[in-house]
């Protein structure tokens, strides 16, 4: 079984806060982490390898320091790591990103055909969930998003069965291999590496590919290959808010005053009385 995982290094968005005084972002000391969904993807691939044998290759596109995420994947049990790094890749939107990752998967596939590509459902910095479907479309392979369980992977019969989220519930669906899956967090728990494995992962070689090694078409890469552009970035507007009633002392008076004010408000009163 030839398994490929696409992962991304992201800033830990939970640490990002807004300074209410200046209305600017406080991001000092924000660390880079591996996108949590992608770690689940790597673990899922390692579990499949445990069931059927095979190799797990992890790919990431990013600056040289994204290597840290590849080493984390290696420590979990991935066999091979490929860093796609080139100034030409910088500034890629989801279309250019899926093209670059596709070119890398295509290159790996020429060495040995790829059975499954596994990605996280989305990255926590952009939350777009577009790169996985982009890769599947370019590969022309089966696409299963929001996967919560991976069932049988039948390489001889050329089929994979998964459970995935669908509107109002879930479905079990079977499709042809090769396939691209994007996974939900609940699919599996990431099993943290032991110390010897961590050390091995630090020593393991990481393959680096640039635009030339991918034989990629330059106009389809990075900023040049990105149809979407950012016009403006701003902090969400902070509103002033309406009247406040201080109930820390004399709670009843404050609450009664608030209820009176609420019932004076046509929208609130309209809803409450109708109900």
């Amino acid at each position, binding site marked *: 079984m030839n398994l490929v995982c696409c992962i991304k290094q992201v*800033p830990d*968005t*939970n640490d*990002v806060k807004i300074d209410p005084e200046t209305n*600017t*972002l406080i991001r000092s*000391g*924000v660390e880079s982490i591996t996108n949590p969904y992608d770690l689940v993807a790597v673990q899922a691939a390692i579990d499949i390898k445990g069931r059927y044998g095979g190799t797990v290759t992890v790919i990431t596109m990013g*600056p040289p320091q994204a290597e840290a995420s590849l080493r984390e994947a290696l420590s979990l049990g991935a066999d091979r790591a490929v860093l796609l790094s080139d100034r*030409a890749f*910088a*500034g890629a*939107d*989801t*279309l250019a990103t899926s093209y670059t990752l596709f070119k890398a998967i295509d290159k790996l596939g020429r060495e040995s055909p790829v059975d499954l590509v596994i990605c996280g459902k989305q990255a*926590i910095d952009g*939350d*777009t*969930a577009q790169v996985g*479907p*982009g890769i599947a479309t*370019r590969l022309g392979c089966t696409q299963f*998003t929001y996967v919560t369980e991976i069932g049988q992977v039948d390489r001889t019969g050329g089929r994979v069965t998964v459970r995935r989220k*669908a*509107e*109002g*519930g*879930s*479905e079990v*669906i079977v*499709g*042809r291999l090769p396939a691209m899956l994007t996974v939900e967090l609940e699919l599996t728990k990431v099993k943290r590496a032991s110390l010897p494995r961590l050390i091995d992962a630090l020593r393991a070689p990481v393959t680096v590919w640039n635009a030339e090694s991918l034989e990629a078409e330059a106009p389809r890469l990075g*900023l040049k290959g*990105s*149809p*979407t*552009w*950012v*016009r*403006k*970035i*701003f*902090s*969400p507007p902070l509103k002033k*808010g*309406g*009247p*406040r*009633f*201080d109930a820390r002392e004399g*709670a009843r008076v404050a*609450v*009664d005053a608030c209820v*009176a*004010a*609420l*019932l004076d408000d046509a929208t*609130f009163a309209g*809803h409450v009385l109708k*109900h």
Partner: protein
Amino acid sequence: MATDKKRVELAEIIPDKCIGCQLCAGICPVGAIEMVDGVARIDPAACIGCGKCADVCPVESIKFERKKRKPAGERKVGKPAGVPGYEGVAVFVEVLEGQGASVSWELVGKARDLAGKMGTTVLGFVVGHEVEEIAGEALAYGCDDVHVIDDPLLGTYLSRPYGKAVSDLCTTVKPEILLIGATLAGRDLSGVVATILETGLTADCTGLDIDEEKRILLMTRPTFGGNIMATIFCERHRPQMSTVRPKVFRLPEKDVERKGGIHRHAFEPPAGEPPSVIERVRDVAGAVVDITRFPALIVAGKGACDAESMPMFQRLAGVLGGVVACSRPVVESGLLPYERQVGQTGKTVAPKLYVAIGVSGAVQHLVGMQGSERIVAINSDPQAPIFGVADFGIIGDYKIVVPLFIDELERKMKSGAGGT
């Protein structure tokens, strides 16, 4: 202002101001910016002085004056008439259990708005099997023309057949904008269609507008977990694609008298054997509550995350005709299930009444509830950001405040006192 030998102005970072967000490093077309000790650093040998970094910097930590060059985002000015040959604002009408999804109608409403600014028409794309009635409904909600692909192979949603059908419609009809609801299927579909058409796609937009001069769609969305808003545009590729979550825009009035054209197109399925669904499990009715459907939500936050108070919150929900929902920490504590979570990683809601109890109001939460008609916040911390979005606030301990609130509300409701 630093300049190089050719006197090109170079951008400079003010390290004290830099917050290490990496946006500049991402946008730099020549990769001249790298992060050193959490602060951006510009390589003067590689910098071409385009000024893109200064444009995206959210904290103005990049010194760059434009004397000779225009801002990068505005340099490539398109033809004011948009891209020739493409016309109309299209909405993908999603079919859910034989009915048009309400998010699709919300988007038709928004599309009317956008089409009005551009002086063009609203198109409905209806794909599925036995969808005649839904095509008629699309006209009633505001489409001028509806394009239909009706085929037994499209009876259930599958990525590739639907991706092919919708991208084929785009190739034939050539809309300049395509809007898709950010449902599970919609998000799956949009990535496929944008890749086939090699066009730009912006996910989960919370605001859509038209730059009337350039005739382009301005798509605003939260990014970095909802901490920054970004306005994105797609100038040279068509259609400009955007997904929007349910309840972001208002449902328009339905007018059954509205007339328009319905055009049928044949389906040419993609090559290869499609996947087959072998089992479908519906969440048991009642076991899973859809919080987006209730007119009132009582929302417990981290500050009110205790099992003992739940009956009290349910009582308040009963009085106001709603249900109990929560913020992310409450789900993480295991007190309430994920489907009750409001916010960036949960659901976007827009009820008539939103009563936030012990919710601090992290940006990630706020982006999921700002569309609520009336927001009431109860919190012991007067500095809590939730008060900034609340129409009414009570500062105090919820364990004391909520019982008093319920009593007073019931008393007033019984006596029929009200402002209207």
